[in-house]
Every structure is written in C-alpha cells, then in structure tokens.
C-alpha cells in the first residue's frame, strides 16, 4: 500500500500537468523575460499574462502582482517595505507564521513599536483587541488568513473594516498562504493592501511565490537589482515556475474543491472520534489539529510514517521546540506535546481518509499501551 500523505499544509504534490509548462519555459522558451530581443519580449508578454491570471484569481480589481521566490520572501518584502522612520506602530497577530512573526520580533529588537493581537481559544484573532491596538500611529497591520497549524480562518472582512475605520491610512498585509486557491474569497470585497501566496501550497512548484500590492506608491524595495517586478524584487524572473503557478491557478476550482475537502475533514473527525482524542474545531476544511492523550505527537508521527504521513505543527518551525500558536490559544503543554496536524488535498478520496484515520487510531492505541 502506498503512503497516505496528510501533510498538505507543509507542501503539496505538484500537479503533473505542470511539468510540460515547466519544461517549455525552461528548455524551449528559456529566454530572459527582461531581454530586448523578440524572444525575451514574447516571454515578458507571457509573464504579464501570468500576473493577470493571479490577479483575477484573487478577484483584485486594481493593484499588481510581484512574483517572488516563496511566501517567506513575500512576507519579508511586504513588511520591511512598509517600514518608516519615526514613531510608527506595527501590529501583528500572535498566530503568525515564523516568516512574519520573526520579522516582527526583529522590528521590536530594532526599537520599533510592535504590538501583538491575542488569539482566542478557537484560534482566530481577538477582533476587539485588534480594534483597541489601532490608532493614528499604526503604519501596518499583518494578520494571516488561515492559520497553518490549526486551520482557523480569520475574518478578513471584519479585520479590514476594523483597520480601515480606525485608521484609513494604516496598511493591511495578509499572509494568505493556506487560504489562496483553497478558501473562496475576493479582494474586490476587501480592503487589503498586501497579500502573500505560495505556489507549492496549492500543487504548484516550489520556489515561486507572489505578493499582491494594491498601491506601489511609496512602497520601498528591500531587494534591489535589475529593476524587475516594478523594481520591488530584483532578479531574473523564474518564468517556468511563474507560468506553472498561473496554470494551476486556472485549473483549480476553489468552491468545488472546498466542498470535496470539507467531506474529507468531516470523515477524519468522525474516524478519530474517541474519548482520548481531541481536535480544534476550525473553519478551514484543509487543516485539522488533533491531540492524542498520553502519546507524544512526534512519536506518533514517526510510528506512522510508513503508512500515513502527518505533521507536527509548522514544518518551517518544527525544528524548534514547542508550538507557539497552540500555546497562545491557551492549550497546556501535555495537549501541545500530543498534538499532530492533519491536512488534506482535493485529490484525496473519502475512502483513503477513512483508511488513514483507522491506521492512526490503531497506531495510537499501540503506542499508548506501551507508554501508559
């Protein structure tokens, strides 16, 4: 039996149909998109088409797409590009991915005023507290769309309303890595200034990300180079990766997949329905966090790895001890140590999930028997 992969929040398998696109732009149309001869110009046109595809998928009526190397880079460019001298304040949620959270910590160390929004027990940010933190000095607010550890969805409508009502000049950045191409939303209905996405989270290739920028005026580049990407991200464009990302965007039917994956999550919750197992009820059908009483989550992960692959928190930070997000939500150490993250993709079947769930349950009790 092949391994059932349930760590799709860490990365997804690339859609095989993208290989052809990737090959074309690596071997046939390999020309530098910034070159002045006809082949370069042709590629530049394709690059612009890809930009349009992403903008359309986001439902953005204005603004631009800056292609980057990954979500971490997009987050860094967005936040650091907004920094200004003076007594400005910067607001972050306590649930942010390390690629935002560690930037916030660095700002704090460098003497900037940084404020943090608490998380509620359900994993969403505390909207009232957010409102209380925003004032005329607020320069930037950065809040993620879907939490990568728990699947909690932050209400972007509410957040953008709060931020812009309290300070229309405050900028809002959203890390939408676990939401884009997964959860239906449209930028046309939201007042968001920057938004981060990453191709490999939705079956695109690794090494490609993007940053949506509503208004480039006054936004400063932290990556100087040959002037590519409106001067905001120097470096030869990864056209093969970008075209592959655009292609998968076009292919994905967000609403249909959402429905399919919601059934998978329900099935997993049903299969793992057991008095010793708890889970955090969240809205994203793609991610679910479970805790297995009495068994270390990492041990369970390793014991399962030849049959079912699950995650223990953010793969980008699992090398560091503990789980900051669950801690912020108020879970105790025993709960956190015993937690694993299960995340799905739309190509999986209910049967597969049922099999995986049964295997997890069986392995859990095998280990529990040995360690209790």
């Amino acid at each position, binding site marked *: 039996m092949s391994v059932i992969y349930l760590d799709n929040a860490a990365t997804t398998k690339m859609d095989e149909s993208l290989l052809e696109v990737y090959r074309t732009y690596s071997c046939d149309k390999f020309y530098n998109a910034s070159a002045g001869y006809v082949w370069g110009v042709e590629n530049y046109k394709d690059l612009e088409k890809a930009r349009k595809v992403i903008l359309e998928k986001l439902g953005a009526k204005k603004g631009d797409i800056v292609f980057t190397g990954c979500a971490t880079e997009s987050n860094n460019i967005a936040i650091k590009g907004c920094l200004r001298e003076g007594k400005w304040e910067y607001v972050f949620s306590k649930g942010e991915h390390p690629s935002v959270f560690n930037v916030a910590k660095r700002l704090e160390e460098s003497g900037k005023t940084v404020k943090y929004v608490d998380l509620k027990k359900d994993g969403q940010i505390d909207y009232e507290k957010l409102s209380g933190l925003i004032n005329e000095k607020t320069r930037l607010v950065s809040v993620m769309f879907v939490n990568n550890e728990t699947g909690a969805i932050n209400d972007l409508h509410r957040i953008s309303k709060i931020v812009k009502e309290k300070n229309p000049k405050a900028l809002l950045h959203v890390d939408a890595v676990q939401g884009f191409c997964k959860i239906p939303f449209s930028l046309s209905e939201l007042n968001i200034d920057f938004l981060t996405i990453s191709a490999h989270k939705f079956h695109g290739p690794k090494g490609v990300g993007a940053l949506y920028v509503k208004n480039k005026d006054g936004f400063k580049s932290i990556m100087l180079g040959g002037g590519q990407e409106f001067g905001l991200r120097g470096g030869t464009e990864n056209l093969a990766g970008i075209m592959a990302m655009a292609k998968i965007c076009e292919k994905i039917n967000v609403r249909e997949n959402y429905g399919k994956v919601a059934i998978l999550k329900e099935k997993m919750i049903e299969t793992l329905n057991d008095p010793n197992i708890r889970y955090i009820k969240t809205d994203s059908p793609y991610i679910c966090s479970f805790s297995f009483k009495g068994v270390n989550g*990492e041990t369970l992960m390793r*014991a399962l790895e030849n049959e079912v692959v699950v995650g223990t928190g953010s793969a980008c930070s699992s*090398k560091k001890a503990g789980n900051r997000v669950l801690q912020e939500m108020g879970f105790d150490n025993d709960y956190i140590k015993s937690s694993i993250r299960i995340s799905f993709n739309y190509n999986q079947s209910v049967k597969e999930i049922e099999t995986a769930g049964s295997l997890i349950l069986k392995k859990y009790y095998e280990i529990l028997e*040995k360690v209790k």
Partner: protein
Amino acid sequence: MKVVLLRFGELFLKGGNRKIFENCLISNIKNKLNGLNFKFNVTHGRYIVSEFDDEIEILSRLKTVFGLSSLSLAEEVVADVKSISDYISSIKIGDKKFKVDVKRADKTFPISSMEFAKDLGGLVLRNNENAKVDLYNPEIEINVDIRFNNKAYIYHETVQCLGGLPFGSSGKALLLLSGGIDSPVAGFMMAKRGLAIEGLHFHSYPYTSLQAKEKVLSLAKQLSNYTGEMRLHIISFTKVQEEIHKRCAPEFMITIMRRIMMRVAERICEKYNLGAIITGESLGQVASQTMQSLTVTNSVLKEKVVFRPCIGMDKEEIVKISKSIDCFETSILPYEDCCTVFLPKNPVIKPTISRAEREEGFLDIDNLVELALSSEELVVIK
C-alpha cells in the same frame, strides 16, 4: 624556504617508551596531512614540515594534532652568520617595538646567543628606521633558532597547539555518545590523552527522531577532525525501554536503562577489543549522575574501567570546551535523545545496588542485552 616548526611537550617524559610515542605522533601528523603536498623531517627536538603549497590548510590541520605543544611558521636558512644576517636584513616591521631572541641548540655556532642577538637587532634597526628595540614589552619577537642540522629557523609567532599525547598511543576506548553537550567533550578530552575512540549511540525510534541520530552522526564527524576516522556503533534501545517501562518502578527507569547501556557497552568493548568506556557524566548534574547513581550504574561492569573526564567540571567549563571543538551548536539542537523517553517525574537520586537488582528481577536482562546487541548498526565516519 618557508617551513612549519613543530614542538612537542610531554613526550619527553616518556623515558624508554619515547620512541613508541614519537612514532605514533609522526604517523598521526602524516595521516593528518594526507592528500596535501609536503615533506616531513625530524631534527633534534623538532619536527619540520616543508615543501607545502597550501599554507593555511597545513597550519589548520596541524593545529588539531594531539601531542604537539606549539608550532611556528618559520623561514629556514643555512645556519651561518651571513645567511641569517641576510634574512634578518630583509625583514620589514615599520615602527614596531621589537626584540631579537637567539637560541643555539648547536653550541658550536661561532658567536654567543646574546652577542648575535644584539648584532641582528642592529640590522633590523638599520633597515627599519622607525622601529624601536624593547626587550621587555616587544610587539614583535624575532626568534632565531639555530639547530644541529646546520639550519636556522627564523620566526616571529608561536601558535599554541592542543598538547596531550599522540592520538592512539594510550589504546582504544568506547565513547557513549548521546547527542548532548557533555559526551563529545568527554571524547575529545580522552582523545587528547592518547585514546583512539569508537562511539556508541542508543536510539529509541520512533520515540526519538531520525534527526536525533543524524545529530549524533554530525557530532561524531566533528570529533573525527581530531580523531581521524571514527567508527560509530548504533543500537536500537526501543524494546529495552518499553520493557523497563512496563515492568519496573518508574523512578528506576533511568537507573536500569543506564545499567543495561553499560552492559551493552562492555559487550561492544569485548567484541571490538576496546579497553575502556568513556562517558560525559558530571557529578550531580542530573539524577543519574549522583555518586549513588554512578555507583549503581558502574557496578554492572565486570572488568572495564570507565573514564569520566567531565566528572569534576561545571557546565560552563564543559560548554567552553564544546564551543572550542565546534560541537556546541550541534549539541543544542532540540531533538530528544533516548534518555528523555519515558522520563519519570521523580527519578531516584540515591539508588542502591540491591534495589536496582530487585527491579531487574522483573526483566530478562540477558535477553534484553542480546536484543540490543543484535540491532547494532556500524557507521564509519571519515
């Protein structure tokens, strides 16, 4: 010609055995420089490495050879007044304060050391108008070392090396390598006293991670910079730990586990002809390292001696050495080792041998030792 002068310290103390120690040291030096171009010569009381191309690599490798007390990058000239004077005349030192120090191992050299130093100092001053002689607090000390081989060596810097005894000259021992800070330091300290080292690591997959094992492999790799090729014996301890957890009193978990580890270690020593066991234990650091715990752990050994070089050291002292041998960054990676699996809330601090034996009565110890040994995986680290 540029050469490296090597000095050795403690070998002089070894009397009749000196030749054995020296041969060992020479062979270690040659092994260490393997793959580089060089020529190696022995003169009275010094080794000389010459005819090399990669000066930086040669120096950095030589600095990690146990048994060498110091080294200097030197200019080799013929040991006559003219050759030495010519070279000294070419030295440029700007406005630095300096002194010249002459040593004559070869007393047949026609001028006395003091007199010659004075003459040479004059030459330096003649060619460096702004330089000043300062015998007590010089910025540069120009040394002229006149040896028996009709050669003189001129250098201005002496780099301290690790000292100790030539690696392997004391025999071969087994280092229990957990992945923490202490055990690589213990290995380094005993290697410095001339022991060749093999490693023994226990893992408890799936309770411990593959990263924890990788971490131990990289620590062994780091140690091998000092020890040369190193063999690492890796043993699965999962079943042993599950059995102890199931059958023994929780507070004795670690005590019994370590007693079984020691039995396995002694068997590995017997199998591979290793003379001793090395651990990173430091008195009182944790419950299993109290005097009573060490007594109880030690008592299962039939004949092997256990070296615990960190026993009297504070953590800060151990960390300092760990950093100096570039192990610290790896040692603090947060992967659980097998000692943290099934960790009881209140481990016994003052166990007794009789109580430990009673707890072991619930286990088939021989069988568990065999089971552990049968899982052995041998990795050669180069």
